[in-house]
């Protein structure tokens, strides 16, 4: 064995070992623990009224937050890359904010806006809209934490494709909308899809911000991650593990979708 193959192998062992101990082992243990005493108990916990409601609420949140952040993300990317102006650094910094801020802080700031003494409170209660401790607050929190993903994945692709294809479309008579729809969007579609996948994963699993603003009421404002935590705290371990495994499976599906996209992009 030469020195370089030796060091290559030790690097591999180090990398894989790190991943195995810190990432893979806990997940395997989770699956093992869940199904240790058969499928019945975890299945029952998930299919309970509260469990199903939590799943439904989580999926509703994904269905609202992800499309909104996708549209907004593509618009922001176009602003950042195609319409350069002095204020762009502000947009850029704002988009990074959710990455830099703890979700709990995000939850608290929503509290300040929509809470009893919040800025928006007078208007909202007059209009009869309840934000805090209901679905809107959960969706808002999830949108906040998952804003950056589509932008971060789309911006580099937009930069890479350049403007020549768009200019060619213009010379061929396409207006701005036709150019975007027929030329720009197809060219950036893998970047956007990648961002959508990451955004979905984040919304599925968001805990911190949601737990502050949702009130965590079983069967009402409880998302799947909150359902896991509540069951865990109440020593309902089959319930906690069952829901956790469900979340993990959803995440794995999303990751598999991402890998498929990657492979498709390569061809």
């Amino acid at each position: 064995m030469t020195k370089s193959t030796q060091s290559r192998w030790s690097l591999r062992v180090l990398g894989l070992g790190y991943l195995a101990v810190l990432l893979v082992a806990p997940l395997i243990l989770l699956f093992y623990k869940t199904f240790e005493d058969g499928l019945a108990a975890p299945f029952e916990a998930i299919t309970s009224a509260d469990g199903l409601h939590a799943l439904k609420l989580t999926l509703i949140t994904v269905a609202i937050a992800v499309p909104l952040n996708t549209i907004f993300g593509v618009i922001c990317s176009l602003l950042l890359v195609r319409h350069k102006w002095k204020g762009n650094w502000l947009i850029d910094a704002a988009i990074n904010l959710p990455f830099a801020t703890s979700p709990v802080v995000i939850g608290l700031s929503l509290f300040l806006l929509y809470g009893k003494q919040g800025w928006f409170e007078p208007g909202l209660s007059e209009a009869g809209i309840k934000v805090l401790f209901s679905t809107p607050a959960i969706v808002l929190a999830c949108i906040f934490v998952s804003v950056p993903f589509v932008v971060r994945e789309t911006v580099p692709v937009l930069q890479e494709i350049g403007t020549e294809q768009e200019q060619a479309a213009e010379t061929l008579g396409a207006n701005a909308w036709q150019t975007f729809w027929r030329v720009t969007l197809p060219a950036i579609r893998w970047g956007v899809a990648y961002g959508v996948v990451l955004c979905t994963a984040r919304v599925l699993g968001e805990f911190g911000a949601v737990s502050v603003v949702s009130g965590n009421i079983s069967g009402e404002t409880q998302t799947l991650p909150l359902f896991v935590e509540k069951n865990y705290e109440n020593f309902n371990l089959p319930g906690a593990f069952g829901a956790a495994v469900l979340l993990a499976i959803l995440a794995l599906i999303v990751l598999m979708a991402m890998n498929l996209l990657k492979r498709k992009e390569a061809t």
Partner: protein
Amino acid sequence: MGISVEGANKSFGDFQALDDVSIEVPDGSLTALLGPSGSGKSTLLRAIAGLETLDTGRVLIDGEDVSTKPTQKREVGFVFQHYAAFKHMTVYENVGFGLKIRKWKKDKIRERVDELLNLVQLPGLADRYPSQLSGGQRQRMALARALAVQPQVLLLDEPFGALDAKVRKDLRTWLRNLHEEMNVTTIFVTHDQEEAMDVAGQLVVMNQGHVEQSGSAADLYEKPANEFVMSFVGEVNKLGENFVRPHDIEVVRDRDDSTEEAMVQRIVALGFEIRVEFVLGDGTEVWAQLTRGELQRLELQEGQIAYLRPVHAKSFNGSAPSNSPGASTPQGSTDGGDAEVTAAA
């Protein structure tokens, strides 16, 4: 459709890309914008297409002022140096793009695209993607795409710049023939004087954001307006205040009043053509272009003394190339003092 540009100015920050440029392109002509990089030739072409907005000045196509018209309404065909192929579309979809935008019927599009693919010699490649084509094929596809919508004018921005030498030469000939067939007013940008002279009927030489001279290839070569044009459209030697082309230097073995003594420094055989490099008494380096026969007759050897007689030497009376008067007028083939001198200064 004739094209004229009047008093065009364009700056990018501190850089003045176009400095009071006016050109006149006759209907049906094939015109080359020739110049070194940064001379403003691409900016001028893009301004004609509307891809660049002029700070001041006007663009007229067929007599109509299109300066404020957006690109999509100017009906220009534009071909980019790096093809700008729509990568996610097949060759067929690329060529048919403009027609689809114009809401042509499917069978009409099919008919027109097939016709164009034949014209650009890409039949049978309709279902390929751009990534499956060679550079030359991609550029021909881009040309077909530009021609599909029957543009009033065709604009090509260094169309052969990214291709290798052999393909370039083929495409040049092909473009010239295509132009003769289609007869659409065409402007193409190049930094290669040989390419410009080979393809275009009319040349516009640009430098530092303005037009130095325009005219036919022969005009520019034989009656350059200034030092810049003379040195850009061909090889040139500088002898004091005079300029002389290497093939206009006569080499003799016997001295007389009209010759200058020089030492042979190097003889380079480039096939039929021989490049002989001399150094004069004052240290000036000069080269002459001889044929193989002439060299043999002269029996020149490196290190020998020979005598040079420049014929058709030109002097531009010290006028600097970038600010010579009249250089930016459209047809400014101003003859900068075509003084014939008999002896090197």
